[in-house]
């Protein structure tokens, strides 16, 4: 019990850190599902590509662990590359792989999405690097470790949490307070009716994909700075977990995805810390299955009538 009490705050903090990353990516799943009712299996891999773009941008300006221009500028450039590149990738994926199937049977885009996911993974593996790529994190951001009340966290981890939460709040404001946000919500509610109201649905879908993918790209950058390495397979498991978070929170529900992500991170961290590191993932997916069976619409989702 003492062991539990001593370690609980630390595990909670670790959980919040990884959970904020899940939440950031879960937002993308839930945004796209909300608008298109499409499970974009490739979203985790967009996150991975974002990480690679950030690593690539860093490699241009950091030679032998020394930044050739001010570090803050490099990080800004990395963010632009990761968010812009991933966003464009998302728009491209929608254009090529999903738009032709928009009115098709539900099975079709789901299978295509799996194909896109496998494509991004293998393309990175074959054409870029089969081995993990290092991100010169220690040349770019201070590697301070913060101590407070017996718990510790690296500054990069805290940054990850803060930036992720800031982006989530920004997205929430965008969707719920702006004119374009209400167009997005209208499209999500009823695409046909939105068209009658003069909303350019294609444009809304494009922008949604851009935002969702840019958030994933930012997640890739934050991941790279925190763990100093990216690899072609990292989007797979992380993507599935983020997706699990979106489902747990109620897919299609933005705030649900944020809370679901944080909850999943904490669950994973607590399971790892106190029950079993060996079967950490098993517990995560068991949680997913149990939530789906008990409450298929997720914890915060609207009851779905004929959605399936």
């Amino acid at each position, binding site marked *: 019990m003492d062991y539990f009490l001593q370690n609980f705050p630390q595990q909670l903090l670790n959980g919040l850190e990884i959970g904020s990353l899940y939440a950031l990516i879960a937002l993308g799943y839930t945004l796209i599902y909300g608008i298109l009712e499409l499970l974009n299996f490739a979203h985790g891999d967009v996150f991975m590509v974002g990480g690679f773009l950030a690593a690539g941008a860093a490699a241009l300006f950091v030679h032998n662990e020394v930044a050739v221009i001010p570090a803050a500028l490099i990080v800004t450039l990395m963010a632009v590359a990761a968010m812009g590149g991933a966003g464009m990738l998302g728009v491209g994926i929608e254009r090529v792989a999903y738009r032709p199937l928009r009115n098709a049977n539900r099975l079709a885009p*789901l299978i*295509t999405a799996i194909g896109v996911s*496998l494509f991004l*993974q*293998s393309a990175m593996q074959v054409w870029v690097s089969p081995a993990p790529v290092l991100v010169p994190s220690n040349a770019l951001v201070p590697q301070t470790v913060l101590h407070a009340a017996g718990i510790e966290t690296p500054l990069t981890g805290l940054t990850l949490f803060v930036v992720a939460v800031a982006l989530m709040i920004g997205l929430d404001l965008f969707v719920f307070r702006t004119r374009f946000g209400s167009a997005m919500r209208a499209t999500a509610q009823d695409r046909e009716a939105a068209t009658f109201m003069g909303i350019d649905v294609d444009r809304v879908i494009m922008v949604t994909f851009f935002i969702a993918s840019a958030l994933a790209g930012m997640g890739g950058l934050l991941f790279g700075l925190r763990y100093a390495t990216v690899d072609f397979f990292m989007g797979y498991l992380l993507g599935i977990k983020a997706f699990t978070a979106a489902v747990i929170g109620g897919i299609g529900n933005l705030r649900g995805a944020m809370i679901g992500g944080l909850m999943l991170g904490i669950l994973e961290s607590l399971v790892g810390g106190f029950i079993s590191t060996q079967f950490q993932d098993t517990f995560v997916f068991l949680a997913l299955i149990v939530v789906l069976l008990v409450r298929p619409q997720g914890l915060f989702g609207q009851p779905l009538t004929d959605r399936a």
Partner: protein
Amino acid sequence: MSAQPATLDTETSHPLKRLWDAGPAGWNNALTKPSVLVPFFIVAALIPFALQYVEDNSSWTGTQFWTFLLANCAMYACLAVALNLVVGYAGLLNLGFIAFFGIGSYAYALVASNQIHQHFPFWAALLVVILVTLAFALLVGIPALRLRGDYLAIVTLGFGLIMNDLILNLDRPPVLAGHQFGPSGLNLTGGTNGLHNVAPFPLPTSLPLLGEIPHSRMYYWIFLGALALSIYGILRWRHSRTGRAWVAIRDDELAARAMGVNTFKYRLLAFCISAVMAGIFGMIDAAFVFNAYPDNFAVQQTVTVFIMVILGGLGSLPGAILGAIAFTVPPYLMQQLVSYKYLIVAVALIAVMVLRPEGLLGTVSIRPRKTMGGTVELLTAESTIEATELPAVTDTEVADLEAQSGAIVEDPEWKP
């Protein structure tokens, strides 16, 4: 078919022309006739002899390699046919399909190797494999099949990942919250190494008349036999009450329920049959290669089997065989292709889905359709028309008719 000529202008046209006009669904029907399938399997079974003959009479020495490749082809064809049953016929997106293949091969490996020092006789091992895969299928199927569509896909994907996690981590006794379950030396799955020295089936190595039978050839025949048996079973099923129920559920679940079809029962049946088939194929594979590896049921493998089914066409048995050949042979022949394998699989998957979603010989139409408020989702060309009789009507025209009239075209399996 030819005994009752159609009343349209087809009477005068050449049979080949008629076949061409019948389109993919018609080709599929033509290829699933016993008069095509029986000779196909006989010829396929004789290929090793032809290879042997060529090798004996020339300097070419590829028999062993090619027989091994053929056995692999036959195995993937088996898997594709089993997946086709659950996705193509019953319309259930089972992303954990390959896990059942793995469960079968590990179950057999455990009772036929020194891992836990059990060596069951063949029939007992087969029973174990069937019962274990069935137990897992029920465990996942009963809760998951109450969900539909996307959610079923997620739950089965989660199940596949859990199995993967268990296989990789059960090489040591599970430790939960500081408590160890089982003796310290417990090693059930061999972790990343897998299980080795799995016993092959107790089969004679030579037979009267056939002479000596090499290992690969024997297992090629076993897989071929399993494939023939599966196809025979599925074809018989398709025209039974069960098969009609599957197609009805896939095409319009609501209508099927209104007709009194117990959708849950039939979906569970399809799910379990397909899972047990995959388990048995896994068992044969473990005996064939003497191993059970965790790689054999990574998620990429599921996608690989999916592309085989989708390229050939959902709901098409010959298509599944075709797809299996298309994605098994090239990577073996061109070693430089191996690293590109999944890239090619992925591109093919996207291209087929976008350009021709029903696949080469598909009988399920999943093309984008302009719905005018209707909820028509799937339409089976296979079922709506006996294609060779009414060659002028194509799949898309039926769809148009349907869209115009707002009605659902006749009962798929209706026969006068």
